[in-house]
Every structure is written in C-alpha cells, then in structure tokens.
C-alpha cells in the first residue's frame, strides 16, 4: 500500500502555532498562482507513523544483520554518533552565521581535518565533498588545475586499472579526461609493463585504490609512484579501501598526491540507504593551493576560520562546507576509537577477511588466492557451468537465510564473482554462520537448483522483475490506477 492510497481529502496531521499577523494582499499575477493542489498525501500522524514504521521493517540494514558488501565497508555505526550529531548546537546553525558564532563547528571541522591528515599522511584537506565520487571529481579537478597552472595543457588522459570502481572513470570523464583503462596482471595487481606503456606526457593522473578491489595490496606501490611521478603525472588514491591500512601505513607515505576518503565507510558514518556520505579530499602541500574553498584554518589566537583566500582554487564543489552532520559522526568515531582502536580496526578487518577467505575457499575458488587485505573475491563460475545457478541466484538465496548478499559481478575482471568484505565489527560466529549458509546453498544448487534459481522466498517480496521495470519504466505513482 502506498501512502497515496491512504490519503483522504482534508485529513490533517499537523497544526501550526497560533498566528496573528494581519493578512496581507497577495500580489502574484494569476498565471503564476498555483491552480491545482499537488497530490501530496492527506493523512494523519498515525498513518504516517505506521506507514514508515512498516516500511523500515522491510529493510535489511547493518542493525539487522551482516552485510558482506565488498568495497562498501558496512561496519557497525555506533549509536552515540547519532546522538551527538543531533545536538541542537550542530543541527540548528545557519551557514551564514558570523564565524565567531560557530566556533564549535569550525573547531570540530578543523580538528577532523587535522586528524584525517594524520591518518592519510596528507598535508591539507577539504571536507566539502559530499561523497566518494564527489571527492574523486574534486581530486581530478585539482589534478587538472595543477597541470594547467604549470602551463601543461597536453595532459588529457586519466589512467585507471580495469579493477577500478566505476566512479573512477566516470569522475575522470566528468572532469574532461579521456579514460585509459589498463589491464591487471595475472596476480590481480597493476601490470607494471602495461602501466609503463600507458604512461606518456599526455597522462594527467593514475587513479588507484590500494588495496585494490580484489583485496590485494599493490605491493609495487612505491615503484608505481615513482613511474607516475617521473612521467609528470599525479597519483590519486581512492579511499574506499582505506580500512585495511589503518594503523599500518598511509597513502601519503606510499607516494600518493591526492586522496579522497569515504567517511561513511572507514569512519563508520551510516550509509542512510545511499547517503548522505562525506568524501574529504586531502592533498600534498604542492597541491594545496588548488583545493576548493573555504579551507578551515586556525589563527594564533585559536580562532577558527573559513579561509576563502586561495586564488588558484578550483572553486567550490557544493554549497557551504559539506555534510557537516556526517563530519560530526566521523569526529566522534575517531575520538572514540583513538590511535589504538583505529589500529585494531585495520588488523581485525584484515584478520576477518583472511579467516573468511579460508572458509570460503572450501566452497568455491578465490579469484586471486593470496593473503588478502580487507576483502577478497571468490567465483562460483564452476558451479554456474555445472548447474546453471548464477552468482545472482546465490545472492538471492542468501537473503532467505537472513544475510545480505556480497557485492557481485565486480570487479569486472572476474566472472560470476562475489566480492566479500566482512569488516572488523563482525564476529567469528557471524563469519562461521555465513560460510555455513553459503555451503548449504551450494549443496542446494547441486541438488535442487530450481530452489536457488527462484529465490528468495521469505523476503517481503519475491524476486523482482527489474528488466521490465527498466524497459517499461513506471517512474511515479499513477493516481487512479491503483
């Protein structure tokens, strides 16, 4: 039942305070006055409460169960971060208040920036971008501004490995670059030879995530950095997989010039069904002048400021200062974890991934069976050949057993694959149970494949037809058609 079907004309769920200002004349010309009431639902408080309460119950979420989504880092989102981000002093401030009246907010942002610089090994940072991809675009525009500032107008190419997140090429393209994809080597890592060949004086940047999306550490990273820099290009770090490195090493130490973070991954701010996230971008000193404005600064009297005086800035990436309330959560998280806690995050994330890898490899092959970092990729291609049961079917069957499915069909270089990232907040028991269920499903696939092919069964709806949904799209509720 949609909320529109609960609507009844003139039903009300609100009451505004007493109002005693004399009615003023309306001087809007008739053709600009609204004629038809928008079909927003007319319901009362109990309808709204039940509708959304019951909708929420139809959702899987971190608070419901295990979310082994590779590269998404679906870790536990501590509740205290929710509470503090909702303090009135954080939610009820206007972006145009004088800076002296928002010193708490500016201090928080400044300290967050400083902590993130420490964690990434970068020199300066903007908190403005709203998401990882937004951070990527910011970073690539900084790349562009850097090259142009040096009069280097011929760099029109951005290199990305074939295992990269889709946002990498999309962001590079949005910044006007031609995207050059280079194939991974047989060990799932960057093929240095392919890189060598691709690197010429038209290359502006190499975008890399390390560990890569296969969960493998790019062990030649120092060499790669050297090659890239020798070619006059910049090395960009996609922070999606930073969780693996916490407490051990830093992008800045590995030669990266620009890094974006996903506060909603590594720093545990909730994903909110897709967002809001936050994608701070850190740079080495020589790129600092290109960062978007404003930048947080502190003067000698410990006054925190928004500094707009950066004449080579790429501009601004969104209104105001970014997703402030997401920053509050990340700040509380880092303060809660501390240096020891963050180190444990990295270690336990890697331990969990390797433990689960060992369990899963008894069920299906690991695409690159090395020791992995925070995630790994397994493939059921053999099972698919034997039984016709695809990775998608297994994913849907997992839902029946109360687990979310892993990331699938990504990275594109492995077929019928699952990309599995357990994160540090899941217990051994949960991982054991997950492996056990996966084994059960493989058995089902071999013994009664139709059962798996038609899964799920116990979910609020059964398998949905998304092909027709895109072929004959219904974009909105159609009134009068039920």
């Amino acid at each position, binding site marked *: 039942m949609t909320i529109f079907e609960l609507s009844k004309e003139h039903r009300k*769920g609100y009451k*505004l*305070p007493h*109002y005693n200002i004399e009615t003023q004349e309306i*001087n809007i*010309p008739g053709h600009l*006055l609204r004629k038809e009431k928008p*079909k927003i639902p007319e319901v009362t408080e109990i309808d*709204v409460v039940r509708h*959304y309460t019951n*909708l*929420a119950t139809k*959702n*899987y*979420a971190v608070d419901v169960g295990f*979310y082994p989504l590779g590269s998404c880092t679906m870790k536990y*989102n501590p509740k205290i971060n*929710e509470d503090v981000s909702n*303090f009135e002093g954080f*939610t009820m401030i206007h*972006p*145009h208040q004088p800076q002296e009246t928002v010193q708490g907010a500016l201090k928080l942002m400044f300290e967050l920036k400083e902590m993130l610089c*420490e964690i990434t090994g970068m020199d300066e940072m903007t908190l403005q971008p*709203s*998401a990882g991809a*937004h951070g990527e675009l910011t970073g690539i525009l900084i790349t562009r501004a850097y090259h142009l500032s040096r009069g280097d107008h011929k760099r029109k190419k951005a290199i990305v490995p074939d295992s990269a997140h*889709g*946002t990498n*090429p*999309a962001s*590079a*393209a*949005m910044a*006007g670059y031609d995207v050059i994809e280079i194939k991974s080597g047989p060990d799932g890592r960057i093929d240095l030879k392919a890189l060598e060949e691709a690197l010429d004086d038209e290359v502006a940047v190499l975008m890399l995530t390390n560990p890569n999306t296969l969960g493998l*550490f790019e*062990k030649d990273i120092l060499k790669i950095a050297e090659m890239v820099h020798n070619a006059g290009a910049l090395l960009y770090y996609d922070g999606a997989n930073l969780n693996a490195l916490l407490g051990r090493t830093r992008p800045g130490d590995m030669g990266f010039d620009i890094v974006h973070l996903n506060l909603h991954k590594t720093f545990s701010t909730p994903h909110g*069904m*897709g967002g*809001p996230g936050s994608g701070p971008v850190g740079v080495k000193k020589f790129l600092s002048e290109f960062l978007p404005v404003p930048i947080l600064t502190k003067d000698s009297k410990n006054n925190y400021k928004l500094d707009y005086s950066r004449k080579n800035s790429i*501009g*601004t*990436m969104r209104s*105001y200062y970014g997703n*402030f309330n997401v920053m509050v959560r990340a700040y509380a998280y880092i*303060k809660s974890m*501390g*240096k020891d806690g963050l*180190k*444990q995050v990295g*270690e336990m994330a890697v331990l969990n991934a*390797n433990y689960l890898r060992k369990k899963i490899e008894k069920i299906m092959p690991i695409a690159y069976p090395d*020791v992995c970092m925070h995630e790994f990729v397994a493939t059921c291609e053999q099972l698919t050949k034997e039984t016709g049961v695809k990775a998608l079917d297994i994913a849907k069957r997992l839902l029946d057993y109360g687990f979310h499915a892993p990331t699938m069909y990504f990275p594109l270089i492995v077929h019928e694959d699952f990309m599995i990232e357990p994160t540090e*907040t899941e217990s051994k028991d949960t991982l054991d149970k997950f492996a056990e269920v996966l084994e059960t499903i493989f058995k089902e696939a071999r013994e009664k494949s139709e059962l798996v092919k038609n899964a799920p069964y116990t979910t609020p*709806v*059964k*398998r949905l037809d998304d092909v027709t949904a*895109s072929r004959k*799209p219904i*974009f*909105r509720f159609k009134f009068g058609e039920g």
Partner: protein
Amino acid sequence: MHRYIPHTEEEIKEMLEEIGVDSIEKLYINVPKTINEYNLPDGKDEFTIRRELLKLSKENVTFEPENVFAGAGIYYHYIPTVVNHLANDQKFVTAYTPYQAEVSQGTLQALFEYQTMMCELTGMEVANSSMYDGATALAEAILTAVRVNRKEKILLSRAINPEYKQVSKTYCSSQNIKIEEIGWEKSGQINIETLKEKIDQNTSAVVVGYPNFFGIIEDLQKIREAIPEKVLLIVVAEPVALSILEAPGNLGADIVVGEGQSLGITPNFGGPGIGFFTTREKYVRKMPGRIIGETKDIDGKKGYVMILQTREQHIRRGKATSNICSNHALMALVNAIYMSIMGPEGLKEVAMRSYNSAHYLAKKLEEKGYKLVFSAPFFNEFLFHVDENYAEKWENMINKGILGPLPVEKIFPDLSNMALGCTTEVNTKESIEKLLTHL
C-alpha cells in the same frame, strides 16, 4: 579490544590457526609499515565523548527559530516531531543503497513515493531519488541540458544563489561549457531583453530561479515565451514556494531542480540538505542519479527496484550520465515524511504564512523608512537598502538572540548596503516587532 570490535583473544588465536599463520603481522605481506602509531589521542568512552561534543555544540550560537530572519538558501521551518522519529529508524539509517531490492523495499518504496511527491510539487514527469544539494543539482542539470542539446552555452540568471553559480562553474570548468550571466531589471526579475539578445544557436539552456535568490518570483511564462523551444528552461525552485506558485512544469520548464532542505530538514550548518532533480520523461535517459521504478515480483506482487541503471557509473563507467554514486537518500526520506505529515494543505499554510509574514515585515520596514530594492512580487525573501553601519547592527542583533536579515554583501559581493530579509511560518508577530526595534 575496543568496544566496537567483538574479537576475544581466544578467537583471534583460533582464526589465525585457521588461516595458517602465527601472527597478525604475517597477514601484512608486502605492506610497508610506515607508522607505529598515529599522533592521535587514545580512544575515549561514551561518557567523555558525549560531554566533549556537547561542549563543542554549545560553542555555537543557536537562535529561537522565530528570531531567525535569514534565509538565502537555508531556512528555519517547523519540523513535526514524527519526522525525526521515523527518519531516525536505524533500519533506514544503516541500510545501504538498495542493490538487493527484495530486502530493500522500505527504502525503495519510500524513494518512489518521494519521487512522486516531487513530481507533484514541480509539475514534472520524472524525478530522481536525490542529489547532494541544490547547487550540485543545478550543475548536473546544466550538464544534462548540454547532453541533450550538445551546445556549449548556458545563460544563467545573475539572481541565482551565488553558491549554486560557483558550483555550476566549477563543474563546467573542464567541459568547455560557457556560462553567461543575465542581469535583472529594476523589478528584480531577469532582464528578458538581454536574455533574448544573448540566446543563439549555441545555447543549450536558460537557468532562472523561482523565486530567485532575492525572493523575486520570475515570470516563467514570459521567459518560456522568450526563448526558443529547443533551448531547455532550467528552473531552480524553492519547494515551499511551489505550494502557492504555479508548478514550473505547467509553465514550460524542462528541468526543475533545487534544495529540499526547507522540506523538513534542519539547517545543519548547510549540510546535509538534499538536491532534488525533476525533468520530463523524454530526458530521463540523460538524467543523473538513481531512479526508482515500480515493478512486480514473480508472484505478481507490486514491488520497487532501481531502474535505468545503464545510465550510471557502476555500469556505464566513463560514459555514465554522472559519477554520482552515494546520494542523499536519507534526506529524501525526511522530505517524504515531512510532506506526508504536512499534506498539501499544511504545505500551503506554511507557504502562505511565509509569504504573508514577509510582506508584513516589508511593509513595516517601509513604514520605518527602509526602501525595498526591487518592485516585482516576492515570496518570503526580499532585499532592502540599509545604512553603512548595518553590519554592526546585525551583529548587535545576534547578541540579542536575533539572526537578522543578512547583510547581502557577504554573499553577493557587488551588492553593498543591502540586506536580505526572510520569514517563514515560524516567525511571530512579536518576533517581528522585536526585530523592528533593532532596525
């Protein structure tokens, strides 16, 4: 072990054994150890965290909503209690993007309903399920228009929120798109003659505010008539105003975008809010962002899924319509809940009061000798001339708990000695009178 991490010493041992290594160190093959520990403090308990953050939050000055007369893109509206109660349900908050539709029907239905409401409000045919904010929504609208018309020129009203203009320029900087600004007439509305003059074969779109940054209601009908059919009309709308203003979709708009903060979202120091993006069905495949569609399951039961994903980065990669991946879905939920509880009549009452109070305030200011800058009809914001010492007065008011009309020069550097006043349904007659005593 830190309290968010479940591992006991015994389990770590068992797990290492299963892996076949004798220490965690062995898992870091080839990973250089470049740090021993971060230069960060030790982890803190909840009690301390709560106290420290509360202290920081109190280092920010907040205002009673009725004493806020500043808007300029971020508004203080009444937010019914249920909005946060429901939107804080952690089964929404801690859910991921609804890739597994069968266990994400809560998310998907809520977003589908949000899209429907935004279509109703704007009079458009399709909506996506959110952008980051109004500014990026406009930037993406411009890129969309360029994908549709493949022309490099965009004519943009100068009376657009400067934040939006800057972001649009940043987004367009690397794509050879030229943004030209069109000034306003004395009335505060876009100068139609200049607009007509500047439009040429190379123009992909015209961008106007509705109302514009100064609260002035642009005459969309006249603008639409003034520009060629194939030039896209992009409208940046304030959604609260749309309850009393004719829907842009009925006046010829091709893309309607804007900031949805005023629909139930707290100011949040400017973020997160939400960008909304609506357009005509014929442009849907050029549109950025996630779109939710209705479908059926194998039993024929109604359900919802993400549709037209082939436009998106995770499928289309370098050829995608946008790089957007994370969006502001949770804020779309907030918008939907807010609109549900307010209903069309509540939204209209909010809009009417906002309008009425602003006109009352403007009248009172005029009675005090202040002069409005523009003459065209305005919604709930208006620009008026002030003395040179206004900035001082403004800070004075802040000390008295009033966030007065914004000295607009801070935002719009070429407008000196003017202030941008704003009211919403939360301002009271008493608060307006209090404000007037300080002016």
